[in-house]
């Protein structure tokens, strides 16, 4: 028999803390909290209307469709995949409901059918990605066009309108006589559920495992294909749910509803620290980043910055969100070998970002002064 011994000092310690004190504060979520505070501060200085409860309430419901689609998107991105078809699926489901409504079908039956169609759309993605093993990017790029096409097929150039009030409650109503919109309450409730599933269940752990090493996860007897199928199906369901909420909020449906929102959804997830290569991320981070984007867009809106121009700030922030951690990592990993290329780009982006705001500050101040 072997006679070797193991030096005691190297045996592992069960009671070591999971994360060091320092690591806790290095979490990306703190960065987001900081940015949110800065943004709230700036917005408050800029306009007295910012903290108006009605304003906040109305704006927050604008972001709930993005939020609802973001929840399953976080799952999908964590497994290292992507779903580009969500916004098209949303448009398709909402249009299908509009079509049925125009044909005189009961609104609840129509809504149920739309949810079913959206779920089927998710299942088709899931089937092609997990069973046929086609690349997710291509599959969902295809269904992105396909589902949007179906939306136009259902409604043509028409809009469907005239939904009953009982239905529009889901987009316009408030819960319990408060100012909290129903859609916000629904999102918060689902976000907690999705967060718990991601971080506290075996299913969530499997998502991280797949994203970090799909092969080894498969070798460990985890039903990888089934899990992928489930999350794409879930994504389809949530996209159609978002479609219904949007229809209820507008009180009408057009086939181009939600065009381009898939990018906002992915932006929110990635800015929230979900690694686009899979394997890393948290639901809290994604939620915070949605809040940050919402507050920034709201604040910029109050500053009369057009929605399209707001993209400058959001885009910069997204690139910064992946640049800064890479610079920090290169500094802490090597001690002195800073990756100059990323450090310089980070600085450049930061500068543009600041200049952008200084410019609008200044222009707005000029407007106020002139009035």
């Amino acid at each position, binding site marked *: 028999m*072997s006679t070797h011994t193991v030096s005691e000092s190297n045996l*592992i310690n069960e009671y070591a803390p999971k994360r060091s004190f320092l690591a806790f504060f290095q979490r990306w979520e703190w960065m987001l909290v900081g940015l949110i505070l800065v943004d709230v501060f700036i917005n408050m200085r800029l306009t007295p209307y910012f903290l108006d409860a009605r304003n906040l309430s109305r704006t927050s419901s604008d972001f709930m469709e993005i939020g609802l689609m973001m929840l399953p998107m976080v799952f999908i991105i964590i497994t290292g995949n992507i779903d580009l078809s969500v916004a098209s699926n949303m448009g398709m489901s909402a249009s299908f409901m509009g079509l049925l409504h125009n044909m005189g079908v009961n609104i609840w039956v129509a809504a149920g059918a739309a949810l079913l169609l959206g779920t089927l759309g998710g299942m088709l993605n899931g089937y092609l990605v997990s069973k046929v093993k086609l690349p997710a990017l291509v599959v969902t790029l295809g269904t992105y066009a396909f589902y949007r096409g179906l939306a136009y097929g259902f409604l043509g150039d028409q809009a469907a309108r005239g939904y009953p009030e009982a239905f529009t409650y889901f987009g316009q109503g408030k819960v319990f006589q408060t100012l909290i919109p129903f859609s916000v309450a629904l999102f918060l409730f689902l976000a907690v559920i999705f967060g718990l599933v991601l971080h506290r269940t*075996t299913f969530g752990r499997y998502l991280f*495992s797949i994203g*970090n*090493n799909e092969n080894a996860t498969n070798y460990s*007897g985890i*039903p990888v294909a089934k899990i992928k199928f489930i999350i794409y199906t879930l994504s389809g369901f949530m996209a159609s749910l978002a479609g219904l909420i949007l229809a209820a909020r507008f009180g009408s449906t057009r086939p181009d509803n939600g065009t381009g929102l898939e990018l906002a959804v992915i932006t929110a997830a990635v800015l929230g620290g979900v690694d686009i290569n899979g394997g890393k991320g948290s639901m809290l981070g994604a939620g915070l980043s949605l809040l940050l984007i919402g507050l920034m867009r709201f604040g910029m809106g109050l500053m009369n910055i057009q929605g399209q121009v707001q993209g400058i700030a959001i885009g910069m922030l997204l690139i910064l969100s992946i640049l800064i951690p890479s610079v920090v990592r290169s500094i802490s990993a090597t001690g002195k070998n800073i990756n100059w290329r990323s450090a310089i780009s980070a600085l450049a982006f930061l500068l543009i970002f600041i200049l952008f705001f200084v410019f609008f500050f200044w222009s707005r101040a000029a407007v106020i002064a002139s009035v």
Partner: protein
Amino acid sequence: MTEYILELKNMTKRFSGVEVLHEVCFSLRPGEVHALLGENGAGKSTLVKVMTGVHQPDKGEIYLDGKFVSFADTRESRQMGIAAIYQELSLFPDLDVAENIFVGRQPLAAGGRIDWRKLYADAGNLLESLGVRLDLKQKARSLSIAQQQMVEIARAFSINARILIMDEPTSSLTLNEVADLFRLVRRLREEGTAIVFISHRLEELFELADRVTIMRDGSYVDTRLLKDVTRDDLIRLMVGRTITDLFPKQDVKSGEVVLKVENLARAGSFRDVSFELRQGEILGMAGLVGAGRTNVARAIFGVEPATAGKIQIAGREVAITSPQQAIKLGLAYVPEDRQLHGLIPAMPITSNISLPTLFKYAQRGWLQDKVERKATYDAALQMEVRANNIWQMARELSGGNQQKIVLAKWLSTKPRILILDEPTRGIDVGTKAAVHALMSKLASEGMAILMISSELPEILGMSDRVLVMREGHITAHFSRAEATQEKIISAATQAVTSGSV
């Protein structure tokens, strides 16, 4: 002038506060093969990376031809004639041999076009001078590992490398390929190239190397002439303790047949594979790399299901089409490639160990953190895993400790049949002995073990019976008493049929 072409003095390197090299000294003469020996985690790879400028030392000096130098990156070290060939080869799969040799430095004709004629002529001359025969227009993707290594060596010499560092170049080569490689290395040595050679196979060092530097736990131990040391000396220096028996297989009376495979086949990889595996038995599976042994294991485990044939487990015929099913039937498979199939390198030790049994630590799907932590900690402790704590990422551990984690993970599924694919490849001597002792213990407790190994001493020492595969089918079957190195090699390399199963 000094007699050394390269000299490292008092190299110290820390990673996030942890010292991985401590005052290490190393010297290299022109025209010598200098082996670097140590267990995994001893600091060999880090030392090599300091020599090539991948890492910069925190303390210590590097002298090249007696002159003080420092390398900011690998480009600088390459310019000074230091080339390294790592375990993970770095050729461009869609470029051909000649393009790979001169990639980034293609000879240019007028107008900045690539001078293809000169490129192929230069590549041909270079390969000829190295005595390597390769088709210049073959794509790297279709080359064997051995041929890819030759291309990397040629690439190193196309930039006039005077120092060639080879990190475990033989770990995935067949015997003939190793012989070819050694012939080339000897030739380079005669021409005055200094070679740093890392290998875990002691036999190879005695065959090839002139001097050996031994490292342990990040520190320099000793440098010796190989003709003055014995195998036992090296092991003692390397592990700092004596390992009396590398292959401690105890005799166990075999029990009932638990796994029976009949005429198993998978189109394109193996055919007509039949054998029986009994309780308490270790069945060795020998053969060359690519003989189809791993494919058989994957078929039994359901990763790449068989297309024909029968599998019986404990007398019952089963069709295994997924690893889940295999695990339910009491099978466990420790794969050949730890990084790719065995582990999730970017996840903590605890999550790695609990992955196949995670449902056990959950109530209605909700994870019970404390139960999981306790169970995985116990499993890691039992395997004597060395790590800071169970939250440490698997990728931060040495190969030996990673293998212990893979073993802990699979043993926690309480398998009846354990398939081990190259269980000790690339792990240090100490861990190797521990793995062998564990296998022996498991067998004595009634586990049936199928062991795929390319190391003949391991096959001969551990197996109760030996199967040999060649080109996708079983060519021989020996009892422990019958099996010899010569018989196995001949069955693995040419068509020999002895008493088939």
